[in-house]
Each structure stands twice: as structure tokens, then as C-alpha cells.
């Protein structure tokens, strides 16, 4: 289960639940218009208890697409999500910001 809510200030999404194979398509769909538009996208992930490689792949795709056009801001990821970001090397993207 993943609850996805749009946020206007800052522009982005608030995510609560788990990001895995079962929910990743919903996340991709919700993120897509923001990525197309460009600019900074804030993802409030404080309520995300689990994220697997399929979730990381969505973020990587967004980061690649946003290169030179905007940033992805992850707000308050839990320790397991921070660890996935490290292990998969997402922190090497210049346009990713992780806010504790």
C-alpha cells in the first residue's frame, strides 16, 4: 500500500506506505507530470517505511530526466530508505537533495 497525495507548497508529493513492485506504477504515474514540467520536486517520504530497488529505479529515471532542469528533494527519509539511496549510489546525482 502506498498513499500518494499531491502537495502545492512545496510542489511535489507526500508518500505514506511502501514503495515496491505493487505500488511503483502508481508512483511513476504520479511523478510523471511533475518530471515533464521540470523544476524542483519535493517528495515527503517521512511516511515511507520501505523502498526497494524498483522504487530507486523510479527516482533514478526522474533524476536523469530532470538533469539541468530541476532537482528532486527527499524530505525525512527513514534510515532504511537512506541506506538504499547510499547503496544504489543515488547520492552521486548532483540534482538529488536529501533533507534529514
Amino acid at each position, binding site marked *: *500500500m502506498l498513499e500518494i497525495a499531491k502537495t502545492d507548497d512545496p510542489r511535489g508529493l507526500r508518500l505514506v506506505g511502501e514503495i*515496491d513492485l*505493487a505500488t511503483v506504477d502508481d508512483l511513476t504515474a504520479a511523478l510523471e507530470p511533475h518530471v515533464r514540467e521540470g523544476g524542483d520536486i519535493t517528495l515527503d517520504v517521512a511516511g515511507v517505511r*520501505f523502498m526497494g*530497488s524498483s522504487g530507486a*529505479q523510479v527516482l533514478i529515471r526522474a533524476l536523469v530526466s530532470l538533469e539541468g532542469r530541476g532537482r528532486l528533494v527527499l524530505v525525512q527519509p527513514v534510515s532504511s530508505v537512506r*541506506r*538504499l539511496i547510499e547503496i544504489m549510489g543515488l547520492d552521486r546525482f548532483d540534482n538529488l537533495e536529501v533533507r534529514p
Partner: protein
Amino acid sequence: MNGTSTTSRSFPATAQALSEVRRFLRECAGTAGLSELATDDLILAVSEACANVVLHSGSADLEVSWRERADSVEVLVRDHGAFRRRVRVPSVEGPGGFGIPLMTALTDQLEREAEALFAEIASIGGVVRGIETGWFQRQIAQSAAAFQRQVEMGERIIVGVNEFLSDDDHPVEILKVSNDAEAQQRQQLARVRAERDNELVERRLEALRQAAESDHNVIGPMLDCARAYCTLFEIRHALERVWGAYREPVFF
């Protein structure tokens, strides 16, 4: 118990079940007293393994076993799919896209190989001729030898046999049939022979033999034999007197 305990649970191999798998692992980790970091890492790793089962194995279900020892935890993920060693360069463009063309190519190839075999069977004079000349026996022997060679050369991977071995041996209980079983069977057979109507047995076996000689259907007389408590060997022998016995030719 020798210091280990195992908890297993089955899940459907679906994306929706992954959340259940993680909850199961978290429960086990909690009971085992694993640190938070170790728990997170283990859950991520096993969840990824199970996601691969869902995506790639073709299995309808998966089983997760949590095996705990004094100083370590081992988690096994089992499925009923087929193992394929496939190395793909990860792509930003997204997952998938390779599976369907690969499967199509494989099934086309399988069909072509089957057609080639059918053509070869036709060319040697058909199935019966193939059995008589030992063609089938040779094919099976060659296929078994080729399989064994592939396993021993490491060209065919069997998880747990020649790759991804676990360093500890899990004892498996083997069914052992005692010698008493034979003695018991002999006793029962002797009792049947003593108690049955042996004149009736002779008549029924003779009727079966005559049916075999006369090109009549032998199923009815065989059932009559069974009802009179003729043994399988006696029924076989009655037919053998008329038709002879098949001896499998040995060819290599």
C-alpha cells in the same frame, strides 16, 4: 534441535504479497533480537530476492524459510520456477522488455527442435521400429549423459547442487523399508493361495489363455482372473505362453 530453529511460510508469488513477506521477516527478526540495521538490510535483500521470483521465475508461489542459529540467521527463498542464468546490463530506461522476445525465441527454438526429432523418428521407420532398434533407449542415454556433463562442467546450474551451495548440510530423513515387509508379503500371498478356489483359478487362467490365442479382447477374462484371486504373475504367465515376453534390447 542442535541449536537451530526454522520457521517457514508460503506466499503467492505476487507483487501484493511482498509486503506480507516483509512483515513475516520483521516478526522473525524481532523474535531473534536482530539489530535495526541488520533487520533493515535483511528485509531489503530478501524482498529483492522475492521480487525477482515474482518478476522472473514463473512460479505461482514462493516459500520463505527463516533458519536461526546461535550466532547467525539464514533466510532461504524457494520457488517452483526454472533457473536461468542471465546477465543483463541494468538500464535507466526501465525494467522488462527482454522477457517476452526471449521466451518467444526459446519456444520457437523448442518447437523447431521437436519437429526435427519427429522427422528423424519418421526417417528411421516410426516409433515401433525405433523401440526395436534401441533408438529411443540410445536417445535417453545420450540425453542423460549430456545433462550430467553440463552439470559437472558447470554449464547447467542447479541451485544447491553445483552452485550457490550452503556450507552446512541439512540432514534429510530417508524412508527405510525393513526386511519384515518382504516376509509379511510372502505370508499374505501364501494365505491367499491357500484360501482361494484353486480349480476356479485354473479355469479362469485357461479362459484367458484361449482369449489371447483367439484374438478376442483379453480385458474381460483378465478381470475374471483377478476376481478369482489369480496373482499378477499368473495372469502375466498365461499371456506369455501365447505371445512370448518382451525383452528390452540393450544398445549403446
